[in-house]
């Protein structure tokens, strides 16, 4: 699988309140959550983001609460993948479980806002079309890849029910 998209840059310790403020947690509707994504720290984000765009962030992305509404709202915006130096634990598992791809690389600082990236998941390669640089990334451990291949955690649950 390959994806291509424009970069939105974020810093370190972007927390789940930044991603979706608690005042919008009185709904579970993906579209509505998406319309308030990053509203507190980047009010223009949800209006300008395009399908396939990519988030590139610093350390500890998604720290804070367990609200799955955070990755749901990001996915609802059409973001194809989140790249960060590191991810907070609960955000990481929530994203795996709902099928929002995450990539961990340490070279995020070399990527600029608005750059176009091409990501080759099969071979674990990110190509920055603007700078020409490429980055290798670790694929998921087999255990997690099985969850992803199954189509998320609930697809596994469905198999168990059947």
């Amino acid at each position, binding site marked *: 699988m390959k994806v291509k998209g424009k970069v939105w840059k974020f810093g370190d310790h972007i927390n789940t309140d930044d991603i979706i403020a608690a*005042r919008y947690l009185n709904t*579970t509707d993906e579209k509505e959550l998406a319309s308030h994504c990053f509203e507190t720290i980047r009010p223009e984000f949800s209006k300008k983001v395009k399908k396939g765009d990519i988030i590139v962030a610093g350390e500890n992305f998604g720290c804070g609460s*367990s609200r799955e509404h955070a990755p749901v709202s990001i996915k609802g915006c059409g973001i194809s993948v989140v790249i960060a130096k590191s991810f907070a634990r609960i955000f990481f598992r929530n994203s795996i479980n709902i099928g929002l791809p995450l990539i961990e690389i340490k070279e995020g600082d070399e990527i600029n806002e608005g750059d176009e990236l091409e990501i080759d998941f099969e071979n674990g390669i990110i190509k920055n079309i603007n700078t020409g640089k490429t980055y290798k990334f670790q694929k998921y451990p087999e255990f997690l890849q099985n969850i992803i291949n199954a189509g998320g955690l609930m697809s596994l649950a469905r198999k168990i029910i059947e």
Partner: protein
Amino acid sequence: MTISQKILLSHCKDREIYPGKYVECDVDLILANDITGPLAIEEFEKVGAKKVFNPEKIVLVPDHFTPCKDIKSAELVKKLREFSKRHKVRFYEIGKVGIEHALLPEEGLTLPGQLIIGADSHTCTYGAVGCFSTGVGSTDTAYAMITGKLWFKVPSTIKFYYYGKLNDYVGGKDLILYTIGLIGVDGANYKSMEFTGPVIENLPIDDRFTICNMAIEAGAKNGIIKPDRITEEYFKGIGKDIKIDENLKTDSEKDYEKIVEIDVSKIEPQVAAPHLPSNSKSVREYENVKIDQVVIGSCTNGRISDLRKAAKILKGKKVHPEVRCIIIPATQKVYKMALNEGLIDIFIEAGCVISPPTCGPCLGGHMGVLAKGEVALATTNRNFIGRMGHPESYVYLSNPEVAAASSIKGRICNPEEVV
């Protein structure tokens, strides 16, 4: 092995485990609230699940936006209520409900050696009584409600060893704020934090709850304290006679990834400035910060001993005329105890308002949301941008005594100033 690893091992089929290994474990208790529960129920129903694996092991606690702040939140709670009726799952109605992480231990639902998951990041609180408890998402919760199982990556453990004599007005909140300041908001990401040493061994249970509650603010998977005499006494107090498994301890110093030693005699009451819990320093550094609101409550500091500490400071005093002081007993039981002990009287005489048990303002939900430019000092756990309301409002974090004293002065202060 460490305590945390032993609990995981005892709940999975694997013969051996090691940090970094992925395992599927049986869970003893599953918790969800009015924000995360409805999403879990939607996932549960979407895959066509007809029944939960075990109704007795699931608890739904509508505590975040309750008593319901608006129509949408009422709809979410309704969803929980109906699900609980359909599947005979425990549900806490208004009048019985309290803040989940104070309520569940009080109800005797969290026991040493158990593996507990909750769709709330502060589920790590129950490590205070020797559980491996950890926050997960709504999809995790749905999966576990169906199967009784969930996947985990086995964490390594960092040992925190606290020694020395505690200073006045320094308690569990100050120890954990100081610790997060030391290691940072991702200092324990994916890891277990084990709190040990002579200070912890003598620390009251409520302070232990506060410490383990905020392990997540350092990114930890769980926080844990070896169950001991104090744990046993706590359970006796809630009418549960338990015998602690002697094996529920870390075997060797070599089992830890790292050991951090902290001399508590150097720790003064702590205040964490906006916008990260790791911005913690001595209260003296922030003494000129004027405040508009004080919140004393939450899953971090809304227990009876927290209210006792606040009342001791506020007794016979008045809240500053330009400060709103909101007191939130974490559960109905805490509320009743506070009433019987005369604490509520002290708070009302001082000019505080008493809220029903709710997470409310901690996450900017209701019962004390901040306007643009306003500053709050709260005994809660997070001070992220806009956490308590307007994106341009500011939250400082402290213990209940500092919060109470500051409500009198109208600015952040050391309790020494008012006693």
